[in-house]
C-alpha cells in the first residue's frame, strides 16, 4: 500500500460532522478568490453546478466540455426524479432516514459521513432548483408533489414529468450561462481533456484537444475538478449516451489518482430489451414506472400466447411473490437479478424471449388513463417510438442494462483525489452510493457535490497557495504531457489496420457483459482477464482510424476512449475477482444464500478497494480504506 488514504472524516456525532468541518476548513477571503484559477472538466449536473457556484463566490473558473454546448451532458437523460428529505408528505421522512436508506441501499459499502452530508444537503438542492425555475411537478394547491421510488418506503422523490434530469441540468446550465455572460467563467466547448498535468505531486493543469480544429493546448490552474461522469459504456451496450467515457478519470488514475471499487456497477432493471445486433445503445424506462407498473411473466416457460390472453392465475408476478414488503419497488440490484433469473429459467417474453412484462393495465383501471398519462406520458411515447407497441394497450417489455457506475476516483471528505489539487465530483467519484445506488440519488449527489460541498471544501486546499501564480503552461511538465497526447493521436492514425474502433468496442463489451456484468464468477473473470489483453493487443496492432488529426475526426475521438476502456476493464475484472463476496450490484455466484440472495462478508470486505496505477493495466496495486459504521449497524439487507 503506497497511497495515502486519509479520508479526513471530521470528528463528532454524525449529525454534526459537516457543520464542524465547515467551521474547521480554511477559507479564502472574498477579495482573494479571484486570484485562484479552477479548471473544471465536464458540464453535467456536477460540473455546471460547481462552476456556477464557484464563479458566484468569485473564483476564476474555466470549464471544458466535449459537447457543442454545456446543456448536452448525459445528466439530461435522467428521467425519474431527485430525492430529498423534505418530509412534505408527512410520512415519517427525515435526513436520518434518507441517510439510513442510502447506506442500506448501498449494501454497507459507502462512507457514512459522506452519505449523511448528502442527505442533509438534499434539502437545499430542492430549494435552489425551485428558485432557479425548475418546473417540478405540483399539486393542485400549487405546492410540490412527491412520488416513491425503489428502496424507500416513503415518498420523497421530486420530479418533473419523466424529464427531471433535463430540467435540473438546464437549471444548472442557465446558472452557468449567467456566469459566462458575466465573464466569471470561460467556457470551452467541443474541447476534450486528454491528460492531467502533475508537478511535484500536485495537479497543476490539463492538456486538451479542440475537436474541431484538432489543436492540442495546455491549460494551467490552481486546482482541477473532474466532473466527467461514469464508465458504463465499457459494456458497449448501456443506457449511457454514446460519448460517455472513462478517459478523464482514467488519465488521472494513470497520473496517480487511486481508482476505488471499479467493479461496483449498476445494472438497471427497467430498460427496453435489445432488438438486434445493430443496437447502438439501450434505452432506460424510468424506475418510477415500477410505482404503477406490475412486473410479471407467464407462469409456464415457453407460453407464447399474447399477454392479454394469459389469465391472471397463469401469470407469475414474481417480485410481488418474492418480496412481499417492497414488491415491485425493491432496489435496482435486487430487481435486476430477479429478472435475470426468471429469464434464464426460460420464462422470458417478446420475440427474442429476452424480457419481462411491465404492465400498467391495473393502474389504468384504478387511476384512470389521464392520471397515468400525466405521470408517464413522455416515457410511454418514447417506448412506442422505439418498439412500435403502445404501452397503454399492451404491457411494456423490459430487461436489465448497465446504467451507472458507483465506482470511480477515490476522494476524501473534501472530494479531493489522492493527487493534491485534483478533485472528482458527481458520478466520477466513488463515495456516496457504496455497492448500489438507489433511484433518484444520482441527481442528488451530482448537485450536492457541485452546489454545496465542493465550493465549501476547495478553499481548504487553495488557501495555501495565496498569491502564487499557477504553473506556467510552458513549464516542461506541460511539454511532456502534451507530447504524450500528440504521440498517442499519431499512433492511432499510423496503425492503419483493418478493424474499426466500434468493432473492438463491441467485442470488449461482449466480454465484459458476459463475465463482469450482472453475475460474476472466478472462472468467468479469469477468462475475461485472459481474453481482454489479447483483444487489446489486436486493437493496438490492427486498428483502423481514417482521416487526419487536424480537424473534426469522430473516429479518432472514439479510439482514445476505447483504449482507456481496455485498461479500465482489466481493473474492473481484477477488483471483481478479489472481492470474494456479493454486495449490491456486485454479485459473485460463489457467494449467495440458498435462495439466491447476495451474501455479504463484512468480516473481510467491509472496505473500499483502491487501485493504484503501476504502469501495467494487468497488475495494479491494491490499497484499502476500511469502512466503519457507527450510526447504522450493517445487517443483511432484506426487502421481503
Amino acid at each position, binding site marked *: 500500500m503506497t497511497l495515502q488514504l486519509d479520508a479526513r472524516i471530521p470528528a463528532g456525532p454524525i449529525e454534526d460532522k459537516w457543520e464542524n468541518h465547515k467551521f474547521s476548513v480554511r477559507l479564502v477571503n472574498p477579495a482573494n478568490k479571484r486570484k485562484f484559477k479552477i479548471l473544471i472538466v465536464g458540464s453535467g449536473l456536477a460540473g455546471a453546478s460547481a462552476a456556477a457556484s464557484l464563479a458566484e463566490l468569485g473564483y476564476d473558473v474555466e470549464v471544458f466540455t466535449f459537447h457543442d454546448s454545456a446543456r448536452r*451532458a448525459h445528466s439530461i437523460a435522467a428521467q425519474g426524479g431527485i430525492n430529498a428529505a423534505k418530509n412534505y408528505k408527512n410520512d415519517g421522512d427525515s435526513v436520518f432516514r434518507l441517510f439510513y436508506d442510502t447506506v442500506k441501499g448501498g449494501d454497507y459499502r459507502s462512507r457514512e459521513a459522506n452519505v449523511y452530508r448528502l442527505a442533509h444537503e438534499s434539502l437545499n438542492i430542492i430549494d435552489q432548483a425551485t428558485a432557479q*425555475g425548475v418546473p417540478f411537478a*405540483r399539486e393542485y394547491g400549487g*405546492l410540490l408533489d412527491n412520488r416513491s421510488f425503489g428502496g424507500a418506503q416513503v415518498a420523497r422523490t421530486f420530479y418533473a414529468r419523466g424529464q427531471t434530469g433535463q430540467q435540473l441540468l438546464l437549471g444548472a*446550465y*442557465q446558472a452557468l450561462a449567467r456566469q*459566462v455572460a458575466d465573464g466569471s467563467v470561460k467556457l470551452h466547448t467541443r474541447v476534450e481533456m486528454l491528460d492531467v498535468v502533475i508537478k511535484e505531486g500536485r495537479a497543476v493543469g490539463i492538456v486538451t484537444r479542440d475537436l474541431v480544429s484538432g489543436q492540442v493546448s495546455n491549460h494551467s490552474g490552481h486546482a482541477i475538478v473532474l466532473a466527467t461522469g461514469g464508465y458504463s459504456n465499457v459494456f458497449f451496450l448501456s443506457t449511457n449516451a454514446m460519448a460517455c467515457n472513462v478517459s478523464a478519470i482514467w488519465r488521472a488514475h494513470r497520473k496517480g489518482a487511486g481508482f476505488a471499487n471499479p467493479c461496483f456497477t449498476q445494472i438497471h432493471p427497467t430498460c427496453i430489451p435489445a432488438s438486434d445486433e445493430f443496437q447502438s445503445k439501450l434505452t432506460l424506462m424510468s424506475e418510477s414506472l415500477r410505482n404503477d407498473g406490475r412486473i410479471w411473466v407467464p407462469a409456464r416457460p415457453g407460453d407464447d400466447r399474447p399477454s392479454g390472453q394469459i389469465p391472471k392465475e397463469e401469470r407469475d408476478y414474481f417480485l410481488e411473490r418474492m418480496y412481499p414488503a417492497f414488491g415491485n419497488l425493491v432496489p435496482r440490484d435486487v430487481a435486476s437479478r430477479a429478472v435475470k433469473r426468471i429469464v434464464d429459467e426460460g420464462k422470458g417474453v417478446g420475440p427474442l424471449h429476452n424480457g419481462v412484462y411491465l404492465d400498467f393495465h391495473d393502474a389504468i383501471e384504478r387511476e384512470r388513463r389521464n392520471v397515468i398519462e400525466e405521470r408517464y406520458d413522455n416515457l410511454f411515447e418514447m417506448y412506442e417510438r422505439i418498439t412500435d407497441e403502445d404501452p397503454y394497450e399492451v404491457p411494456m417489455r423490459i430487461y436489465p442494462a448497465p446504467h451507472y457506475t458507483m465506482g470511480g476516483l477515490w476522494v476524501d471528505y473534501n472530494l479531493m483525489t489522492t493527487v493534491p489539487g485534483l478533485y472528482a465530483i458527481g458520478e466520477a467519484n466513488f463515495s456516496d452510493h457504496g455497492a448500489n445506488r438507489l433511484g433518484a440519488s444520482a441527481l442528488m449527489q451530482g448537485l450536492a457535490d457541485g452546489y454545496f460541498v465542493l465550493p465549501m471544501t476547495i478553499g481548504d486546499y487553495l488557501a495555501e497557495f495565496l498569491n502564487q501564480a499557477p504553473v506556467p503552461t510552458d513549464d516542461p511538465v506541460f511539454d511532456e504531457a502534451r507530447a504524450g497526447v500528440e504521440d498517442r493521436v499519431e499512433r492511432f492514425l499510423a496503425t492503419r489496420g483493418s478493424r474499426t474502433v466500434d468493432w473492438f468496442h463491441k467485442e470488449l463489451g461482449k466480454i465484459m457483459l458476459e463475465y463482469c456484468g450482472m453475475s460474476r464468477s472466478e472462472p468467468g473473470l479469469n477468462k475475461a482477464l485472459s481474453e481482454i489483453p489479447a483483444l487489446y493487443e489486436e486493437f493496438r496492432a490492427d486498428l483502423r482510424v481514417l482521416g487526419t488529426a487536424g480537424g473534426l475526426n469522430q473516429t479518432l475521438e472514439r479510439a482514445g476512449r476505447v483504449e482507456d476502456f481496455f485498461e479500465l476493464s482489466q481493473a474492473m475484472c481484477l477488483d471483481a475477482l478479489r472481492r470474494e463476496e456479493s454486495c449490491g450490484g456486485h454479485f459473485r455466484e460463489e457467494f449467495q444464500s440458498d435462495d439466491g440472495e447476495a451474501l455479504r462478508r463484512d468480516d473481510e470486505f467491509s472496505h473500499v478497494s483502491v487501485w493504484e496505477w503501476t504502469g501495467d493495466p494487468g497488475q495494479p496495486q491494491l490499497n484499502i480504506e476500511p469502512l466503519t459504521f457507527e450510526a447504522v449497524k450493517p445487517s443483511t439487507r432484506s426487502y421481503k
Partner: protein
Amino acid sequence: MNITLQIWRQDGPDRPGGFKVYEVDGISAEMSFLEMLDALNERLANQGDEPVAFDHDCREGICGACGVMIDGQAHGPQLGTATCQLHMRKFENGATITVEPWRAAGFPLIKDLVVDRSAFDRIIEAGGYITVDTGSAPDANLTPVPKPVADTAFDAAACIGCGACVAACPNGAANLFTAAKISHLNLLPQGQAERWTRTENMVEVMEEYFGSCTNHGECEKACPKSISIDFIAMMNSDYLRAKLKNRRLVAQ
C-alpha cells in the same frame, strides 16, 4: 431493407460541398435512423472511406445533439420525434433518402452534417436564467405555483435546443427556441423580477444571429417536443410590454 442515401458531404466551412450517393442494403426496420448511419459508417471505414460526421449523443431524444434534414424535413417525417428516435420502419424498402445538415445562416457548417449551434447559448446567456446565487434560495414550498401555470411553464421548458425550429423556418428564425425559454421563466413567479429585462435582452441577441418570424408555423411542426407557437405570441406580447416597462424603469 435496401435504401439509397444521398448525403451532403463537406470537409469544412470553406471547402466545397456536395451530395454523395450511397447504396445501403441489409438495413433492419428495427434500426433507428442513426443506427442506420452507424452501419453506413462501418461500411465506409471498412472500404477505406472517411465516415460521415454527424452530431449525436443520448439517442433518447433528450440531449438535443442530433438532428439532420431528412428529405427536406427537420428530424424527418415523424411528428414530435428527434432523429435518434426515428426508426427505419417509417421508410419504404427501396426508398431514396436525402440527408442534409441544418441549413440556416445562424448555424454555420463545421463538417458534413455537423453545424455550430452556439448562437443558442448566446441567447440563453443574454437572460435565459433566474438570478439566484447558490445558497440564497428560500424554502421551495414558500411560493405556491398554480398547477396549470407550472404545467404550461413545463411545456415550454421541454425544449431540447436541437435547432430543428431554425432549420425548418423559411427565414431561419429562432423565435420558437427563444420564446420557449422566455415563456418558461416569465410564467413562473420566481421569474418575475427579471421578466422585462430578460425578454428585451434575449430577443435582441436572437435578432443578431437569426432571421425574423413571419408566422409560418413550420417550427412547431418540426419541433421534436411539439412546443406550441403560442409561446411566440406570449414572447411578442412580453417584448412589447418590456419595451414600455423597461423605459419606465430606466426613467425612474
